[in-house]
């Protein structure tokens, strides 16, 4: 048991070390993408917990991230708080909203729950993030501008210190990801998965459904909010656009695409969500065989849709999930044969 924990810590550290180095040397645009990728990865990680572990459906994860972002932005802009405090506030706000959203989930399942969460995303998108009545929270039409922020007393200015923000984000992601993997195999994780496989059996076997469902929604929202609360630091300001309804739907789609039950799939999905659109807009125009072509951002959504259909047929457990299963299978076969040619971590 403990040796497994050591292996996991080692993998997390290696992942951190490798990923932290990658954006170095690229231009600011790519560094921004890298930081954004981690923020989206947190959003997907929140779905790994909620959908992958507990089996609950939510189409408002971007709303949780948005609440985290606005709360953090407000703390910094209105109260000039340390960014660490701002992040804590963002997580707490998202957690609270998550518990509230979890209340209907005590009674609803499947499609009805999806519709309710979709409604919540719509309400926040239209009537909170963009409404004058909530200017104290959203900072008005311009959003919060986070020009100067400090963390641990160090200056974390978005325009100059993007890499610093990225490294902090990445470290947090590796830590939370590690905790999530641990959670999966722990007692609480088993209770979560029991709820996913059969709520009826879980309740009769002594699992308090109310408590664990609300906890799952709160924790999931908190994880999404943790990522979201770094958005003001990375982007320099908060606007409703990144946290609109469509992002929530994209979270759901990409979580399924990459494998909703696996933590590394969230990282993969985050990179996919942040980097691919940027690559498309950067290199998406030019000439091919003498004819000019232009690929806009819209192509990204189409690509996601097509990939999702292919994945559901070819890799039903998600890109990461199925490749992992295949790799493990190959490995065990290879080991059974006594050859040491194939090595997959």
């Amino acid at each position: 048991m403990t040796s497994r924990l050591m292996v996991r810590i080692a993998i997390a550290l290696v992942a951190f070390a490798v990923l932290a180095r990658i954006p170095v040397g690229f231009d600011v645009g790519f560094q921004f993408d890298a930081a954004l990728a981690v923020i989206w990865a947190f959003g997907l990680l929140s779905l790994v917990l909620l959908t992958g572990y507990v089996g609950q459906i939510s189409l408002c994860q971007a709303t949780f991230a948005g609440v985290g972002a606005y709360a953090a932005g407000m703390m910094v802009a209105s109260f000039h708080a340390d960014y660490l405090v701002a992040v804590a506030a963002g997580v707490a706000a998202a957690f609270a909203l998550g518990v509230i959203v979890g209340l209907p989930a005590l009674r609803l399942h499947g499609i009805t729950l999806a519709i309710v969460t979709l409604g919540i995303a719509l309400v926040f998108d239209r009537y909170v993030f963009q409404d004058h009545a909530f200017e104290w929270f959203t900072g008005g039409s311009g959003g919060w501008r986070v020009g100067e922020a400090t963390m641990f007393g160090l200056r974390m200015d978005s325009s100059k210190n993007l890499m610093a923000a990225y490294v902090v984000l990445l470290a947090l992601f590796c830590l939370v990801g590690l905790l999530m993997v641990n959670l999966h195999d722990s007692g609480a994780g088993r209770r979560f998965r029991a709820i996913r496989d059969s709520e009826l059996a879980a309740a009769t076997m002594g699992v308090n459904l109310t408590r664990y469902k609300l906890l799952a929604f709160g924790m999931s929202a908190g994880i999404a909010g943790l990522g979201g609360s770094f958005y003001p630091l990375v982007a320099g300001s908060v606007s409703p656009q990144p946290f609109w309804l469509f992002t929530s739907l994209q979270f759901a789609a990409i979580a399924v695409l990459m494998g909703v039950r696996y933590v590394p799939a969230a990282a993969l999905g985050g990179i996919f969500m942040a980097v691919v659109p940027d690559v498309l807009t950067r290199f998406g125009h030019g000439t091919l065989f003498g004819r000019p072509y232009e690929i806009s951002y819209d192509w990204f959504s189409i690509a996601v849709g097509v990939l999702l259909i292919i994945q559901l047929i070819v890799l039903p457990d998600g890109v990461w999930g199925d490749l992992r299963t295949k790799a493990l299978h190959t490995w065990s076969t290879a080991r059974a044969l006594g050859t040491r040619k194939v090595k997959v971590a």
Partner: protein
Amino acid sequence: MTMLRVRDVTVRFGGIVALDGISLDLNRGEILGLIGPNGAGKTTMFNCISGVVRPDRGSIYFDSRSLTYAPPHVRARLGIARTFQNLQLWGSMTVEENLMVPMDAMGRRNTFSDALYLPFSQYAERASDERARAILHVLDLGRYRNTLAGDLPAGIQRRVEIARALAMRPRLLLLDEPAAGLDAKETVHLAGLLHAVRERFHVSMLLVDHDMSLVMRVCDYVYVLDFGKLLAKGQPAAIRNDPKVIAAYLGEESKKLTGEVRTVASPRNDEPPLLEVADLAAGYGGLEVIRDVNMTVRPGEVVACIGANGAGKTTTLRAISGMIHPRRGRITFAGKSVGGRPAERIARLGLIHIPEGRGLFPRVSVDDTLRLVSNTAGSEVDIAPAYQLFPKLRQRRHQLVGTLSGGEQQMVALARAILSRPRLVMIDEMSQGLAPTVVRQLFEIIRVFREQGIAVLLVEQFVESALDVADRAYVFEHGTVGHTGSAAELRSDRKLVAGSYLGTAVDDVPVVAANGNGNGHKLDPSLLETVSVRIPAKVKRALEQRAEGEGRAAGAIVVDLLEKVNDR
């Protein structure tokens, strides 16, 4: 001593009274059986005790604590565990993990310390792990420890369900049809296992099952429900020979003479069979429900399938009509092999299946339901003959099917079937939930089918009525055809048929006078409690029976006995 005490529990679903003032007692260390025909209210009673259904009236006490308003996880903490008929294991978790969930849900665990791998959590983890191994060892499941529960065959999953329930350290184990889908040999094995479990884990059990052979083998005491009322209670041997119980299972004994001459044309035996089923096997998921089923239906013949619930009658019909895919065997209909063909193709050949629950569209009017037949027929169908056959439906032709009474709905289903000019109609549990007079009318319709040369394959719980109308019958037992014979033969051999419902070996047990069959509860519970010394469950039951026989309180009898001892 009385561990579970249920008093005057009434449950209504809409206008239907599912349970009508039921009382029952379960003593510590006892295995109590709860049986009854379909729709008797067994499952409702079971759900009341396990907390899925809340009774409208009455109370349930467990060790003198009221359970009436306790949510399921609180019941679990009090020491009540249950298994599920339809296998509710957590399929994507290993067998060991399945056992560990109830174990640590019982203890105090903390989500955050779990995620952080704190030593406290690790210690609890190791303790749970060891107990899980111990339980798996006792139930001979050790080698499946790290297998995903969903990948195991159904018979083993049933054992894992019992293991999981035991992981909660229960004092009362509620078993919901543990023998469903098991064959005769596995059932015997299960009976032995349940006794072993009681010995080793000191649990009392409440067993709900259709499989009488299991109930008779395992239970110390049996309650029989029928139409939401308590029909009888007593020792298994007495129950098995109780004429009231046999009547409830088989329907009232037919008043007709067995040798009555039929006016209708006898089936044409010279013609090739219309439907031929050979070595059929089918099931759901990991469950193989029927195996080695062989049967034939000739043109114009009425054939009944009878047998206890869960014996595989419905599954056989489903496999024939293509609603489920047969696993093995051949099905030939009208000279064509139809095994594994899609259901709509089979229907087009003239084989109509009226499923249990009738398969109607509740929000479509009677007229439109009948016109839908045109789709299968391929051309516009004249629906007038249907109204000639069922004049009652003509008055209701514009009414939505869902608003009709159960009997009328069944008529719509039959009318729809006859309009599509079938060669064979398969009807599943036609009389379920209907009043006897309505049932009689419907059986008249079956005669009409026969007069029109349509063959009928009936699955029926009212054995007597089914045998009245049928030419031949197949008796299902444990997922295969146990006996077959002409209807007249089977009707005269009531014992054989009863055996298939109430467990074979009816003759083995001397006939004990049916006792304790009144619904009134003569025992005075408070008096019983005052003498609640630690006596074995069997002795207590004997006392209670004697008390009821003499019409005195059990406490009084105990006092008598104690005085006798003192005199010596």
